[in-house]
């Protein structure tokens, strides 16, 4: 995008290096502002059609199956390994300093509920679900199916993004709660097998309170809403054949991962000031 805007300014800007750089920066800023406006407009239209749009029978359920069931194995495997790595690290570090392992479980469960299940799990979902959505919508764009929809006076956002949005909000929350459970079980097994921590002592949920639960669930909900919007935007703005579909998928993965990190930062900071400070 920035390349051809830059090329359009090139004749006047040829005079100097500084002007050329300034033109690049300006073109980049204009591109980003345009992209942000389009993203915002897709978000608003998605919300509008979620309430007001038509309801196709089974579309949301199909999207739920695609987003939820088909990510289950992938998410379970990855989160199991993450849980093992985290408990292994914290136990070795505690052994080096105090050697008192009886609070590891309680603190670990609190951290998993408040942050780690949602943040690591949603990056995984952004990778799988985001790439899938962008690839699907992107292939429809380059084969002119989206233009055909528009020609039939059907809003592409209503047909393509809204079912995935609804499904993703529900399924991401469900999957991330499942991820919390998987991380706790794999962490418990690691602590039991390698550090001799009794599972009953490890499975201590006394430190998890309303604040942790509220923060964790808000994150699940926000990430579930952000992933389909960002990747749907990347899919709808695809241009240029097979290469374009590849580019759209790449952008979807990068920007949905970045969106989850940014949202995580915002929600964590808000929760910190709201609940703990």
């Amino acid at each position, binding site marked *: 995008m920035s390349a051809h805007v830059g090329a359009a300014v090139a004749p006047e800007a040829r005079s100097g290096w500084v002007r050329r750089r300034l033109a690049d920066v300006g073109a980049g800023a204009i591109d980003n502002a345009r992209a942000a406006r389009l993203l915002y407009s897709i978000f608003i239209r998605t919300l509008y059609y979620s309430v007001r749009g038509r309801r196709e029978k089974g579309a949301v359920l199909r999207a739920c199956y695609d987003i939820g069931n088909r990510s289950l194995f992938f998410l379970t495997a990855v989160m199991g*390994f*993450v849980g093992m790595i985290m408990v292994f690290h914290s136990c070795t570090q505690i052994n080096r300093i105090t050697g008192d392992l009886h609070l590891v479980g309680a603190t670990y469960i609190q951290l998993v509920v408040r942050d780690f299940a949602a943040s690591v799990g949603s990056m995984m979902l952004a990778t799988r679900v985001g790439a899938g959505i962008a690839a*699907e919508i992107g292939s429809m764009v380059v084969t002119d199916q989206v233009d055909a929809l528009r020609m039939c006076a059907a809003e592409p956002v209503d047909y393509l993004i809204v079912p995935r949005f609804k499904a993703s909000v529900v399924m991401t929350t469900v999957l991330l709660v499942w991820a919390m459970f998987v991380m706790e079980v794999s962490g418990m097994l690691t602590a039991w097998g390698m550090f001799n921590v009794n599972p009953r002592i490890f499975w201590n949920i006394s430190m998890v309170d309303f604040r942790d639960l509220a923060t964790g669930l808000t994150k699940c909900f926000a990430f579930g809403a952000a992933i389909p919007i960002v990747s749907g935007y990347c899919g709808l703005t695809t241009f240029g054949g097979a290469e374009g579909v590849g580019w759209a998928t790449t952008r979807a993965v*990068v920007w949905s*991962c970045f969106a989850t*990190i940014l949202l995580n930062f915002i929600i964590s900071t808000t929760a910190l000031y709201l609940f*703990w400070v």
Partner: protein
Amino acid sequence: MTESLAQLEVAAKQPGRVSRGAERVVRRIGRSVVGIAQQTGGILVLLGKIVRRFFPPDIDYYELKRNLHKMGNRSLPIIGLTSVFVGAIMVVQASAYVQQFSATAFVGWGAGYVILRELGPILIALMFSGRVGANNTAELGTMVVTEQIDGLRSLAIDPISYLIVPRFLSMIGMLFILTVFGNLIALCGAALFGQLTLGIEWRVFFHGITELLKPWDVYVGLIKSLVFGLIIALSSCYFGLAVRGGAPGVGRAVNASVVASAVGIFVSDYFLTFLVD
């Protein structure tokens, strides 16, 4: 392969079978096991082909230089942006405990340990796989579906040494360098945010890092980044070369490649964590 699977399906559909559901489950499991075995084998064969091109070195240096620039320099902004937020999130998560125990001297150690050993290499590798790995799969896949690879072969240019080896080398090298930069940026982000929210002096923060961490903690993260680079390079090249069926095929290949990279990163991280400690 597909023919023999089709034959199996035909054979399985013959009358005299009783439990349809169980049979379908077994068939599906078998199919995914065969698929995973096929992919692993294909990736190892590709690795063998790449290694053979180093004896004697048969690498296209112009292509190598171009890929180093495209994969390294142009990924720096998104890696830097991600790293700042990762560092800040670490401090936000720690700050509830820090205020509870007023352990400001340990924030630098905690954030440094987690960022340098685990979170930095993993998150940077995930972003790299989203940006560079996915893009690489898309590019190679587009070349396959537009028959450019066959075109290279017909000109007696070896696609492996012309296309794959430079990408392989530049992905491994650039992920390593980006991890070094990303770790530094994440630590600075953590220090900045610690100063802003918890009022921890920069000097106290970095003192915690230099006093309580050993050089080995830095090296572990960098060794991990080399292995992650290998995994991303192999999976993205393999899935790119294995594309079938036009623009939708490219989208599917990108999806499969990022999922395989993510699983590979976490599984190898688990084993590396055990091996190096």
